[in-house]
């Protein structure tokens, strides 16, 4: 094993997540996102969860969220219509922290 550049999916796979399938803690209004020109979420998310899909829209999966809150603060056009912490016991659980 040696140190190498790692993509976020690989990094996130090291963490422990208990994904809340019933209640997503972050919800986007993709129509608003489609109109957003800057899309800062693409670069500021610490987990790299915001991506562009083929048609130029935002693709996002809350499952690997590190719960830092950066996307919420940087979201310009308020396409993030819901951002709360996951319900108790759900979300990321750091083993080291």
């Amino acid at each position: 094993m040696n140190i190498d550049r790692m993509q976020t999916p690989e990094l996130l796979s090291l963490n422990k997540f208990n994904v809340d399938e019933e209640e997503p803690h972050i919800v986007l209004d993709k129509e608003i996102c489609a109109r957003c020109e800057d899309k800062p979420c693409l670069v500021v998310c610490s987990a790299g969860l915001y991506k562009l899909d083929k048609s130029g829209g935002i693709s996002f999966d809350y499952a690997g969220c590190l719960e830092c809150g950066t996307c919420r603060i940087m979201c310009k056009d308020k396409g993030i219509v819901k951002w709360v912490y996951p319900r108790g016991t759900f979300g990321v659980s750091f083993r080291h922290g």
Partner: protein
Amino acid sequence: MAGIYVYSDKKDLAAELVGFAKGCGKRAIVLTFDERAAKDLSNSGADKVCLLKGDSELVENYGKSIAHLLAEQGAELFVVGATVSGRDIAARVAGYLDCAMVSEASSITYTDGKLVTERMMYGGSVQQSEVLEGLCVVTVRAGKFEAISGAAEVTTLEISADTRTTLVERKDIVKEGADLSVAERIVCVGMALDKREDLQIAHDLAAVLGAEVGCTRGVAEEKHWLPVEQYIGMSGAVVKPKLYLSMGVSGQIQHVFGIRDSQIIVAVNTDPKAPIFKAADYGIVGDMYQVIPLLTKTLKGA
């Protein structure tokens, strides 16, 4: 009669277990409750087929009697097909005999006269080996052993049932999608799929391969592009096709758990570091939107 006693409510699986018993050089005695199965199994290479008859239609109700039978006959091992009902009977028998039992062994061998088994733990990430002595019980899934042939006598045996539990009703389950667990080839779609309509490229490839289409959890549970029965993984379908080919699947451990009994695993993904490649026999690093249609075309042409 001493030897290995075999039971499964699936007669093909019972035949495979006879194959195992004979492969160990032991006598194989088949237990069955079904007359037709008894007839078919009389050509499975067993030494004896016991058609058990009693007054309950629930096979689980014979657990205690089978335990007595095995003890009386001096059985060495009771090997049972791992179906819902098989697992139940096996554990009851083990309970009444107060003996060792290994559930869903992935391998069983005799080494120095002792039975050595292997099985999976912790969702498939850990393998445990155990050594068993004396009369014990093991359950085994289908497909682990080869059936053989050879004539055996069929004897009928009256056996008593525990009738405290009775059957009220039985309803067949109507399956919505294809049964992935028995599919020979599977094309699996992952989250790299952009939109529902693009499933067509998976269906096109599946048509050429004679494959069923499966997907990852996200495609079924989040996008709802395929029915939930079609997702493969620890909490979904566990498959063992000859060929599993994934497109745009990243390969999280839970998904990989569901495919690792596949004979050949193929992955197509743009990310060379996607974990699926570690679990694959063959892989193409590339965009599935280019690779898959080309693959379909190539296979069609051949």
